């Protein structure tokens, strides 16, 4: 009966949204640049040429941004799905992948209805408004505040992919023991209460932490170190502590059932991350190149850092360690990617590789929490250290984001002489931590009291694939 009511409510809500959306969103005219009345005068020809140049610029930027959007979606499916899927026991592989996949669908609908508006329309310093509810006003016309050469709709769909992967990362903390229905409800609330405010504060108009739009505490976060990785990573830690350890942890061995799958997933994450970071330049320009290179260098140095640390401590560099290192580096370079030089990216990556290795191998066992897939150890920790190091290594030479009233570039990070930026970064980091901790606790309490969070012990032992989805990942005897 409970399920029927739930399904009915969901169906009604969906129907309402679809109906309203169809009614409200009229197709926008394509923003073809209108040439002036046909004229052979130099002025008329010049204007026509300028229009064509702008068109060409838009074409380059828009095609790049659409590709980046696709790359970022690929990071969730199959990137993260494989990465996480390989790390769990065989009996839970499908359930783990389903968490990522379902969010691809779920967050999309939520984003279309209200998420995009809450993040990117004007509201307060902490949350957006309802201007773009049901994607009202989101079409082929650019919004110059965000990206002047691409349709706002492109910007919307690009940002959507970030909104999808962020909650998916949290799943690493409660893998192998969370109810699917509870995860769905948790993620809807998380997206609204934690992601949307944080994204608005850092990237939205009037956002409290927005570095490019004059926020009170400008936190440099090029592609989402605070918005994506700290919020999800810290939230993951809260979930791991609240839900408790898996049955049998830590005595029962629970090695990854397929490092091969995780390997493939990690490589897809690395390649996809070019869309994540370089795409955050929002144009096909030199800054995108800079972010692309920084991303790649950060991943490389971090893989080496983790591998070296492991080689020293364990005598052998493991494949799982190397790929985890690369991911840690990608996380850390995310906030820094459009602000730092390639050499700084190498340094940031190496530090993150070693730091996250220690977090995962020493700190986790020391404190005994069951962050099953190291969502906190890699994303929470990596995002934090990356955000702080951004304050150190950000330079106007790469990205003159701060300008004085005459338009002259101001020092950005410590290497430019502006050590105070590290403090600004700290403010952003603390807000992200605070929002994640408080918000997650509230949401966990709500979901727990409504429908319960954890599967019963028999389901956990049987395996979630069978218990929650009625399927087996591998039936090789067939």
């Amino acid at each position: 009966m409970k399920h029927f009511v739930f399904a009915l409510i969901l169906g009604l809500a969906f129907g309402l949204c679809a109906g309203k959306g169809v009614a409200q969103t009229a197709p926008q005219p394509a923003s073809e640049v209108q040439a002036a009345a046909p004229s052979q005068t130099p002025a008329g020809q010049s204007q026509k040429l300028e229009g064509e140049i702008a068109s060409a610029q838009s074409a380059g930027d828009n095609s790049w941004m659409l590709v980046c959007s696709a790359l970022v979606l690929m990071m969730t499916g199959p990137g993260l799905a494989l990465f996480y899927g390989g790390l769990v026991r065989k009996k839970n592989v499908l359930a783990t992948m389903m968490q990522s996949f379902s969010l691809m669908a779920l967050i999309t609908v939520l984003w279309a209805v209200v998420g995009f508006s809450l993040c990117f329309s004007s509201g307060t310093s902490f949350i957006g408004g309802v201007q773009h509810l049901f994607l009202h006003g989101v079409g082929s016309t650019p919004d110059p505040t965000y990206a002047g050469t691409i349709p706002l709709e492109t910007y919307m769909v690009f940002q959507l992919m970030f909104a999808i992967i962020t909650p998916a990362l949290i799943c690493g903390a409660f893998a192998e023991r969370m109810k699917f229905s509870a995860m769905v409800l948790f993620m809807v609330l998380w997206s609204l209460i934690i992601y949307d405010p944080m994204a608005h504060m850092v990237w939205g108009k009037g956002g409290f932490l927005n570095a490019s739009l004059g926020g009170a505490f400008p936190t440099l976060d090029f592609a989402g170190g605070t918005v994506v990785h700290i919020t999800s990573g810290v939230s993951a830690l809260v979930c791991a502590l609240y839900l408790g350890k898996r049955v049998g942890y830590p005595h029962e061995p629970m090695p990854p059932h397929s490092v091969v799958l995780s390997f493939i997933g990690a490589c897809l994450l690395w390649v996809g991350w070019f869309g994540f970071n370089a795409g955050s330049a929002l144009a096909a320009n030199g800054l995108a190149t800079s972010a692309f290179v920084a991303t790649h260098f950060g991943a490389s140095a971090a893989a080496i850092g983790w591998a070296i640390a492991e080689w020293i401590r364990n005598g052998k560099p493991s494949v799982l360690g190397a790929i985890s290192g690369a991911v840690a580096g990608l996380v850390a370079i995310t906030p820094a990617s459009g602000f730092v030089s390639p050499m700084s990216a190498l340094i940031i990556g190496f530090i993150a590789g070693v730091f996250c290795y220690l977090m995962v191998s020493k700190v986790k066992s020391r404190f005994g929490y069951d962050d099953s897939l190291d969502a906190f150890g890699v994303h929470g920790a990596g995002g934090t250290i990356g955000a702080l190091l951004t304050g150190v290594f950000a330079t106007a030479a790469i990205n003159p984001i701060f300008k004085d009233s005459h338009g002259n570039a101001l020092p950005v990070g410590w290497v430019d002489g502006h050590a105070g930026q590290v403090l600004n970064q700290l403010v952003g980091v603390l807000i992200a931590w605070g929002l994640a901790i408080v918000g997650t606790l509230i949401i966990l309490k709500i979901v727990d009291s409504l429908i319960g969070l954890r599967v019963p012990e028999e389901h956990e032992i049987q395996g979630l694939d069978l218990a929650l989805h009625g399927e087996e990942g591998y039936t090789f005897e067939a």
Partner: protein
Amino acid sequence: MKKVEAIIQPSKLDQVKNALHEIGVEGMTVSDVRGHGRQKGHTEVYRGREYNVDLLPKVKIEMVLPDRLVDPVVSTILSAAKTGKIGDGKIFIYPVEESIRIRNEERGESAL
């Protein structure tokens, strides 16, 4: 009729199988198993956590043979599978009560 069951190193399977074919063994069942005798396992490390693996991959070959083939088969397996190190495996011999060919319901040694 006797059943000969041999647990051997996976890397020795081809050698043992070919040697058995050469002395006239016509039927066998091979399965992938895990186990240990006195051989020590190994340690695997994932994300800093150690896992002791003491059940090692082996191959089990089972054959039901007429009595006259048992000794030749045992010597063949011994010479093909032996490396001299711990972990080489074991051979067990069991009596068999009856054997039946499913295709034509033949019984006894001629069914082997």
